[in-house]
C-alpha cells in the first residue's frame, strides 16, 4: 500500500476510494470525502497558482484545514515550485516571510482556492527541495529548514514499515505546519493511502465523539497527538466504551511525563508511542514509557555519545545522511536504547559570573513540592534569571503574601548552592506546564509569561486551557500594574473595568476576535481583586453568525455579521476568595471607539 512521495502517490489512488472522513457536526452526520473530491480541490489550487504564477515560484502556505492544505501542497509540487510552511500565522511570523513568496491560505490578505475543478497532471519534475519548515524558536530565533524528498521519503518509509496505518482513520490533534504533524497526519496518510479526519480534533469531548462514530462504524482510528492534549484528558469521560476504536496513539514535540503517559493509557486503553526528534533531525527514536524510559532508535538511525555525553547522530532523515552530527541533547546508553539526560549545559553570564542554567534547573527540579521547573534568562537591564515553577494545585500561592513567601522560601533553598545573582528574580507559578501547541515552552509562550514586566498594563499570564465553548485563562494582578493605583493607599485594588479590558485583549488572540467593544450587559463586580491575587478568567465567545456545522469546529474563523444575532463575550473571573466579575461584553463590527 505504501508509495514514496517521489512516485506521486496522490495521482494513483482510485477515484472512489475514501480520502478523508468528515466527522459529525452539530446537525450533520459523518460522511466520506472521496479521492476524486479531493482531486477537485487540487485542481482548484492549481487554477489559483496559475493566476499568480507570473509573480513567483515560491509559495508561503498556512492552511489549518488538512484537506485544503494537502491539496495546495500537491498543487505546488505538481508545478515544481517551492513551498515555505510558517509555524503559525501570527503577523510577526508571516510578515518577514511574505517577501520570500506569495502567501496562500489562512494568512491575512492571502488568496484561497475557489470552486473545484479537475486536476491536471503535468510532466513537470518535482522541486529539488520538497518544503521548508521553521523551528519553533524554543532555543532562539526561528530557523528555516529545507527538507528534500529523499529525507521525507526515508522517514515515511521507516514509519510505514514499523507501524503501518493499514487503512485506519488518522485523527490529528497537532498542527501540520510542523514536521511531526506534517509527517504523521498528512504525508504518511498520503503515502499509505489511509483516510484522514477532515478537521483537527481539538477537544477530548470531540475525540470521544469521533471515536464513538468509528466504533459504531466498526472502524479503527490512529491518534496523532502531543503532550498538551494527552496530559489533560478528563478521566470522567466514558473512554472505556471507545477503546476498541483506537488502535494507536502517537505523541511528539516534547517528552510526555510518565504521569501523563499513564493517564493516556488508562483513559484511551492503548499505550502512547512517543517519538523523539526535532524539526532539524526528523525522527530519531521512539518509546512506550510503560516498557521503560529508554528510547529505541528508529531502524537506520545510528546514535553515539561523546565524553560530554552529547548525542551524535547519523541519519537518513538528515540533509547529510552520511555525516555524524552533534546534537544539543545529552544521552546515556541503556539496554538497546538510550535515556535522555537533558540539554547540554547552558551557560549564561550574569553580573560577570558564569551560571549554569542546567545546574539551576536541576536544583529547582529537586526541590520539594516542585513538579517541574525551568530557569530562563531574561534580557532586562542586565541579564536576570526567571523561573517557571509547576506546583500542585494545593501548593500554588494565591495572593501577594503567599507568593512572597513562596519566592522567599525557594530562594532560600537555592541560596545554599548558588550565589545571589544566580537566584531567579522573576517567578511564574503554574499548575500546568505552559506550552505552545507542540508542547514546547517556546519563545512566544515565554514572552506571554513575562509580558507584564515590559507592559505595565498587561496582566501576569500563567496559562490557559480550552473549556467548553471558550477558554479559561489563569492570571495574576501584577503588583506594579499601571491599573493598581496609589501604592500608599490603605488598600489598593484593581478597578473592575481593567478585567473587561484584559478580557477583550485576550479574546482578540484566543478567538481571533475582530469585533469591537459595544457595551456591557449585566456586568457585576461583586468582589474587588487585590494586587498579587491569582484568578481564573473564563471567556466564552458567541459569534454573531454561525455558518455550516463543519466550520464550527474551527475556532480561528472570524465571525461574520450578516445575521442579526448579537455577537458577545461572556466573562467571569473567580479566585479562591470568590467571584470577582460576571457578565457579558456586547460586541459589534462597527468601531465605536468606546474601548
Amino acid at each position, binding site marked *: 500500500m505504501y508509495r514514496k512521495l517521489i512516485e506521486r502517490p496522490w495521482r494513483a489512488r482510485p477515484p472512489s476510494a475514501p480520502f478523508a472522513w468528515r466527522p459529525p457536526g452539530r446537525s450533520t452526520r459523518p460522511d466520506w470525502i472521496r479521492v476524486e473530491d479531493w482531486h477537485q480541490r487540487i485542481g482548484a489550487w492549481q487554477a489559483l497558482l496559475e493566476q499568480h504564477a507570473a509573480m513567483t515560484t515560491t509559495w508561503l502556505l498556512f492552511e489549518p484545514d488538512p484537506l485544503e492544505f494537502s491539496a495546495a501542497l500537491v498543487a505546488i509540487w505538481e508545478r515544481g515550485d517551492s513551498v515555505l510552511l510558517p509555524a503559525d500565522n501570527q503577523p510577526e511570523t508571516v510578515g518577514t516571510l511574505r517577501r520570500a513568496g506569495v502567501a496562500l491560505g489562512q494568512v491575512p490578505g492571502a488568496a484561497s482556492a475557489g470552486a473545484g475543478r479537475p486536476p491536471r497532471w503535468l510532466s513537470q519534475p518535482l522541486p529539488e527541495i520538497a518544503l521548508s519548515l521553521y523551528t519553533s524558536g524554543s532555543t532562539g530565533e526561528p530557523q528555516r529548514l529545507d527538507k528534500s524528498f529523499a529525507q521525507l521519503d526515508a522517514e515515511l518509509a521507516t514509519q510505514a514499515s514499523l507501524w503501518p496505518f493499514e487503512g485506519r482513520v488518522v485523527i490529528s490533534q497537532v498542527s501540520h505546519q510542523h514536521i511531526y504533524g506534517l509527517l504523521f497526519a498528512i504525508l504518511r496518510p498520503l503515502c499509505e493511502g489511509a483516510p484522514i479526519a477532515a478537521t483537527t480534533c481539538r477537544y477530548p469531548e470531540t475525540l470521544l465523539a469521533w471515536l464513538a462514530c468509528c466504533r459504531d462504524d466498526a472502524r479503527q482510528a490512529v491518534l496523532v497527538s502531543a503532550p498538551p492534549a494527552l496530559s489533560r484528558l478528563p478521566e470522567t469521560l466514558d473512554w472505556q466504551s471507545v477503546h476498541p476504536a483506537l488502535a494507536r496513539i502517537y505523541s511528539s514535540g516534547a517528552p510526555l511525563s510518565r504521569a501523563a503517559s499513564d493517564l493516556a493509557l488508562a483513559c484511551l486503553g492503548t499505550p502512547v508511542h512517543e517519538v523523539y526528534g526535532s524539526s532539524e533531525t526528523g525522527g530519531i527514536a521512539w518509546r512506550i514509557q510503560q516498557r521503560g524510559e529508554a528510547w529505541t532508535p528508529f531502524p537506520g538511525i545510528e546514535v553515539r555519545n561523546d565524553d560530554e555525553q552529547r548525542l551524535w547522530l547519523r541519519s537518513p532523515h538528515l540533509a547529510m545522511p552520511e555525516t555524524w552530527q552533534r546534537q544539543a541533547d545529552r544521552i546515556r546508553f541503556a539496554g538497546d536504547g538510550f535515556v535522555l539526560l537533558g540539554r547540554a549545559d547552558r551557560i549564561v553570564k550574569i553580573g560577570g559570573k558564569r551560571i549554569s542554567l542546567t545546574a539551576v534547573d536541576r536544583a529547582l527540579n529537586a526541590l520539594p513540592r516542585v513538579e517541574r521547573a525551568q530557569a530562563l534568562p531574561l534580557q532586562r537591564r*542586565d541579564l536576570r534569571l526567571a523561573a517557571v515553577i509547576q506546583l500542585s494545585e494545593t501548593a500554588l500561592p494565591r495572593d501577594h503574601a503567599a507568593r512572597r513567601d513562596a519566592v*522567599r522560601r525557594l530562594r532560600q533553598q537555592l541560596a545554599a548552592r548558588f550565589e*545571589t545573582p544566580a*537566584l531567579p528574580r522573576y517567578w511564574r507559578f503554574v499548575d500546568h506546564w505552559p506550552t505552545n501547541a507542540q508542547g514546547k515552552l517556546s519563545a512566544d509562550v515565554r514572552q506571554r509569561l513575562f509580558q507584564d*514586566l515590559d507592559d505595565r498594563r498587561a496582566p501576569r499570564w500563567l496559562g490557559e486551557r480550552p473549556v467548553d465553548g471558550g477558554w479559561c485563562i489563569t492570571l495574576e494582578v501584577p503588583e506594579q500594574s499601571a491599573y493598581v493605583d496609589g501604592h500608599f493607599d490603605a488598600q489598593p485594588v484593581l478597578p473592575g473595568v481593567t478585567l473587561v479590558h484584559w478580557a477583550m485583549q485576550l479574546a482578540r488572540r484566543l478567538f481571533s476576535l475582530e469585533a469591537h467593544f459595544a457595551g456591557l450587559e449585566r456586568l457585576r463586580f461583586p468582589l474587588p481583586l487585590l*494586587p498579587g491575587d491569582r484568578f481564573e478568567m473564563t471567556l466564552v465567545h458567541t459569534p454573531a453568525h454561525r455558518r455550516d456545522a463543519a466550520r464550527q469546529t474551527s475556532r480561528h474563523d472570524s465571525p461574520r455579521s450578516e445575521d442579526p444575532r448579537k455577537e458577545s463575550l461572556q466573562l467571569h473571573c473567580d479566585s479562591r476568595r470568590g467571584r470577582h466579575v460576571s457578565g457579558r461584553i456586547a460586541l459589534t463590527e462597527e468601531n465605536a471607539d468606546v474601548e
Partner: protein
Amino acid sequence: MTTAALENELKQTIIETLELEDVTPEDIDPDEPLFVEGLGLDSIDALELGLALQKRYGITLESDAESSRQHFANLKSLAALVESRREK
C-alpha cells in the same frame, strides 16, 4: 522632607530601579537587610542602586566596599546616607 517620606521615596526607587516585580513598599521593612537574606538584592543591584542615588540625589559613594556595605545595610541606613549627603 520627613524621614518617612524619604523612606517611601527610596522604597519606590528601589522597586522601580531594580524592577522588583512583586515587592510593594509595605513589603520593605526599614530595618531588614536589603541584600542577600532580606530583600535578596545582589552586587549588580548595588551598582544599579548606586547609580540611581547619584542621578536622583547627587550622591557619590565612597570607593571602599566596607562603607558602601554599611550605607546599603537596610533602608534606614540608606535614608540616613541620602539625608546627610544629598545635593539635589
